[in-house]
């Protein structure tokens, strides 16, 4: 049974169709990431769930309650805003207690619950500070505590890590994931960062120009992308124009057995699926080598106009003709 179900939602701003016919379900306790470029409609989708916008078409249901006609203050949903939106005139403690007071929680419950929420995000000692006296990472934690203290069924997070620097961001990713497991609340996380999406999510919903491109687990979406967009947005890939005939796929000098229907098609082949081996299935000229620590990125030319990207373990410099190989099942046919 789904916790939240978004059914055929569409939204238009002026002449721009921001969302068209989006349907997703979120399970209780799930970490779902809505991934997309800027302008893909991901923030609009979040605002529809929070209640700041109303859908033009479609319905949003949570458990047995229809959500979309309700104003934001009557939904069992809380939001962590992109720039935190902490109240500057209230202390950290009062920020966290705000939702409890607004929902008329009995007075004696407020202090212990706010204190517990602050402890959960390791901010207890900052309770008396003003938000402006905190660093970005600390403000982030307070924003999380302020939302979680209300025990929502679903927490919406609008690019919450985008304002942090790279190192802090990785730290917060780990903490966010463990916090989510601890509280067991479903998270709907909006981001444009595919690595973040892969590291955190149970499932990723890839949004493109207001439509869902693919909804799947990070592994499935990476290993079995459905479209060229999904394949190239999430991770690096080689897109191959392939002719399939007689159980054989053919792209320039590359040939491999393939049981998909005959005709022209595009295949995705991840750089790490191509290996340097002797003897190999094909040979190619190394055009460029980029050192990347544990792995190197090679650009190789198999034939005139057919260059591929290859990821290999770093083992010194490579030049000239080399032989390569890949497993036929790693080449994924796209729609």
């Amino acid at each position, binding site marked *: 049974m789904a916790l939240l179900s978004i059914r055929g939602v569409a939204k238009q701003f002026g002449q721009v169709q921001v969302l068209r016919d989006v349907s997703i379900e979120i399970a209780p306790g799930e970490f779902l990431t809505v991934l997309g470029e800027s302008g893909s409609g991901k923030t609009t989708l979040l605002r529809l769930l929070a209640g700041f916008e109303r859908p033009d078409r479609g319905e949003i249901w949570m458990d047995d309650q229809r959500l979309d006609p309700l104003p*934001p203050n009557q939904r069992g949903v809380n939001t962590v805003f992109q720039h935190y*939106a902490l109240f500057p*005139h209230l202390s950290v403690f009062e920020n966290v207690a705000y939702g409890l007071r607004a929902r008329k929680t009995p007075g004696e419950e407020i202090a212990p619950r706010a204190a517990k929420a602050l402890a959960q995000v390791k901010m207890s000692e900052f309770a008396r500070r003003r938000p402006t006296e905190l660093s970005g990472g600390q403000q982030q934690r307070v924003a999380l505590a302020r939302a979680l203290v209300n025990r929502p069924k679903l927490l919406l997070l609008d690019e919450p890590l985008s304002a942090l620097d790279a190192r802090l961001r990785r730290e917060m990713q780990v903490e966010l994931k463990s916090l989510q497991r601890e509280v067991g609340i479903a998270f709907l996380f909006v981001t444009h960062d595919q690595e973040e999406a892969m590291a955190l999510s149970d499932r990723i919903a890839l949004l493109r120009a207001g439509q869902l491109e693919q909804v799947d687990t990070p592994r499935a979406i990476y290993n079995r992308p459905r479209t060229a967009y999904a394949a190239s947005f999430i991770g690096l890939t080689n897109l191959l124009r392939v002719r399939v005939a007689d159980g054989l796929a053919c792209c320039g000098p590359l040939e491999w057995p393939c049981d998909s229907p005959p005709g022209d098609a595009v295949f995705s082949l991840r750089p790490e699926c191509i290996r340097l081996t002797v003897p190999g299935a094909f040979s190619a000229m190394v055009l460029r080598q980029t050192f990347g620590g544990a792995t190197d990125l090679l650009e190789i030319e198999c034939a005139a106009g057919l260059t591929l990207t290859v990821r290999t373990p770093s083992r010194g410099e490579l030049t000239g003709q080399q032989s390569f190989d890949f497993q036929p099942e790693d080449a994924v046919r796209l729609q």
Partner: protein
Amino acid sequence: MNVYSRVYKLVVTIPPLAWVAIFLVAPYAFLFCFSFWSVQSQTIVHHWSLHNYLRLAGNPVYAQVLLRSMRIAGMVTILALALSFPLAYYLSFRAGARKELLFQLVIIPLWVSYLVRAYAWKTILGSDGVLNTLLQYTGLVTHPVAFLLYSPFAVVLTLTHIYTPFAFLPIYASLEHIPRSLVEASQDLGASGFRILRTVILPLALPGILAGATFAFVLSLGDFLAPLLLGGPGGVMISNVVVSLFGAAYDWPLGAAISLSMLALVVLLLMATERLEKKWSFR
């Protein structure tokens, strides 16, 4: 530093400094000197004493007029805030596409001469005025209502009309500066309209409200045209006293002493409100 930049510095700094010296420092210095001199047989004698300030303190009439001025200014302030906060709130948060037009409509009266607006009220409130004619026509009263014109009421009404835009502008600016995400966060946490207003918008607009109140109070406290044109004997304010001392009474020293006392009062008030504004602003 080369000679050109030195010349350039002089060229840009001297005019404003000269302006301030000639039109601000010098007049206040004269006023300061006058307030310690006195008048003997229609001539001003340069005889330094605290005489004028003692006269001010000794005669209760001056304190009464000052109190009345502050009462009128206080009422104007309250009315101006009561009008301009809801207006600014509506424009900033609710007006949507009409915002620009409405904003211009609030500002336009500032382009009309003060005198014209004061005379307009005279025409409206007088015994042959628009209001009385209407009241008599509808049969609500048989004789013209007298208290409308030449009364503190007329002064308060006119000053409120004239200074409400001054209270409106800083309030509107402070409301416009409130990040809308804070309002959304408040809604998201379960707050309803009135709670959002009370716990988020009002506290964050406080510096603007204070600035608006200060404008309305200080400007109406020192006003002399509205009481002169519409105040009558009961609506005399402190500036009218100063004007008559400098004019008909030819008692410049006493007028200077009142002016400087008022100046000190206003400066103290401004310092106090500035401190409060700093304390209440969170950005």
